[in-house]
């Protein structure tokens, strides 16, 4: 391990930062300061400043801000429909989630009944995004614990969803597809639906390979069992959501508890575990992957309903000057990271007055991470970070 003794932080900046406890106090004889990230593979544009005592973490300070692009401020200066191309960049691995929450909130403000076909497409897109994001997560997590094969497989399987997305929307990572009132384009045709069916079937057959190499592997158990434990009260107090909350035994899933789109008609389970350690968080994600495949199968069996894919409204003909009635709305969906929500305030003009996005990592990426890292070993830092599934862009926005 490299001793970090000479920190290259400009003196005046360091003085200012010390005042606000941003960087840690100068190093004593036994302890040293370690900058974990943003170059580290596990942190993704995020950094943690660790005060180390040997290989134990004495104190951790999360240091976000590398991805701040001021989207919420910029959204106030653009028309409603233009904002889609901006806000989806808040969640990189599943960019459909910010699109959908923003569109749902605007739909509620305008009072639009979104057509059935658009609802079906939106549900399919959200579930595809979830699966693509699970693959992305396996890629990160498996690489962190040294099981590189599983990571490479997951990257290849994610590619299948990327191709389907490309054919549906024209974009691979950022789709700019869901817009207030419906979706931007129709489904390319029956061939695309068949391809989606094949992909679901294929990923389903590969899950047992993942079990063998990753989820039922003794290395995974040895690295994650009993690491980064939280209990139910701690999780609720810190507003932890998603798989992390379900790993402490709280069955909260937005798709069940505040149903949207087609989810009330679909049959799926919300897996919960009670241990609250990293292993429980990993296994909850594994079970959810299975449920998502099952949901997609049901949706494909249902088939897309007929009718328009966009709401029929005369006002849509003059899009840039499209005005939304004054009011405020909150919409949220279940993403793989947790409860992702948008609060949109309108003052009756053609631009939103305020857009505020709630990223799930805001709650489990700062205070929870700092608490769980205290006393952990250095080797467990990436494991805790990856099992919490911290997504830096939704902290910074």
């Amino acid at each position, binding site marked *: 391990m490299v001793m970090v003794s000479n920190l290259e932080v400009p003196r005046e900046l360091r003085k200012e930062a010390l005042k606000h406890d941003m960087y840690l106090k100068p190093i004593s004889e036994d302890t040293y300061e370690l900058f974990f990230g943003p170059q580290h593979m596990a942190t993704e544009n995020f950094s943690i400043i660790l005060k180390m005592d040997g290989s134990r973490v004495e104190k951790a300070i999360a240091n976000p801000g590398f991805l701040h692009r001021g989207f919420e401020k910029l959204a106030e200066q653009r028309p409603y429909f233009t904002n889609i191309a901006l806000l989806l960049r808040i969640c990189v691995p599943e960019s459909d989630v910010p699109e959908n929450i923003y569109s749902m909130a605007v739909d509620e403000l305008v009072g639009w009944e979104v057509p059935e076909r658009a609802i079906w497409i939106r549900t399919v897109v959200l579930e595809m995004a979830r699966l693509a994001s699970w693959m992305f997560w396996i890629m990160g997590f498996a690489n962190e614990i040294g099981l590189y094969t599983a990571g490479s497989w997951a990257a290849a399987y994610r590619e299948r969803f990327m191709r389907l997305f490309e054919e549906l929307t024209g974009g691979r990572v950022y789709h700019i597809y869901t817009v207030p009132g419906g979706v931007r384009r129709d489904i390319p045709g029956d061939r695309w639906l068949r391809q989606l069916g094949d992909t679901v079937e294929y990923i389903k057959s590969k899950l047992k390979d993942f079990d063998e190499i990753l989820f039922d592997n003794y290395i995974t158990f040895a690295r994650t069992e009993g690491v980064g434990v939280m209990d139910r009260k701690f999780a*609720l107090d810190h507003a932890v959501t998603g798989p992390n909350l379900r790993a402490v035994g709280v069955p909260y899933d937005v798709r069940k508890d505040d149903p949207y789109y087609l989810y009330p008609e679909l049959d799926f389970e919300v897996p919960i575990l009670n241990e609250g350690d990293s292993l429980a968080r990993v296994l909850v994600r594994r079970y959810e992957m299975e449920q998502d495949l099952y949901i997609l199968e049901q949706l494909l069996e249902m088939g897309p309903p007929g009718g328009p894919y966009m709401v029929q409204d005369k006002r849509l003909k003059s899009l840039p000057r499209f005005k939304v009635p004054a009011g405020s709305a909150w919409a949220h969906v279940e993403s793989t990271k947790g409860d992702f929500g948008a609060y949109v305030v309108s003052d009756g003009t053609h631009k939103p007055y305020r857009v505020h996005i709630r990223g799930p990592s805001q709650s489990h990426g700062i205070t929870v991470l700092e608490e769980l890292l205290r006393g952990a070993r250095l080797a467990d830092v990436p494991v805790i970070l990856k099992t919490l599934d911290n997504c830096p862009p939704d902290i910074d926005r």
Partner: protein
Amino acid sequence: MEEGNREEVAEVALNDVVDAVIERAPYAQGKVIRERRVEFSIPAEKLRDFLRVMKESGFEMLMQITVVDWLKEGKFELVYQMWSVTHSTHAFVRLEVQRDDARLPTVMDIFPVAETYEREAHEFFGIDFEGNPRLGPFILEPREYEKHPFRKDFSTLSYVKEIYGEDFDRYDESKTNYVI
């Protein structure tokens, strides 16, 4: 049970939740907006007391603190958004503070997660949360600290011009219809 019937039952149950909260906190006004959405407005000085009542009434999670800058009225509207796992309901707790002297007590000890939200609101809007020890540069760079960029009177264009100066030659002051 039929769909419509179930919704009615849910709404009646929500009314009971709102009534129970108001009974314990008579200074608050509350109403049911729609299924799974309730709203309360409270005076700013009763914030801590009210959030404690909310937590004991089953709203376990503080999801977000949203600040809306109403420049013309000279006020910040703060929306404490809470989720109840028990009632499956989202609650908006609205309060207003004066824009020029925005101070509020911290709610960190009731909801520890509020620390992060308050740091963010402090940095972007300049609201002082008394009792939160970690207010300071958080997401922005230290040179941008205390500029409070999300306030409505902060101009992104003039800030960019100030920082990048002559290099930013696309900016033309005579034009008024930039969308940046």
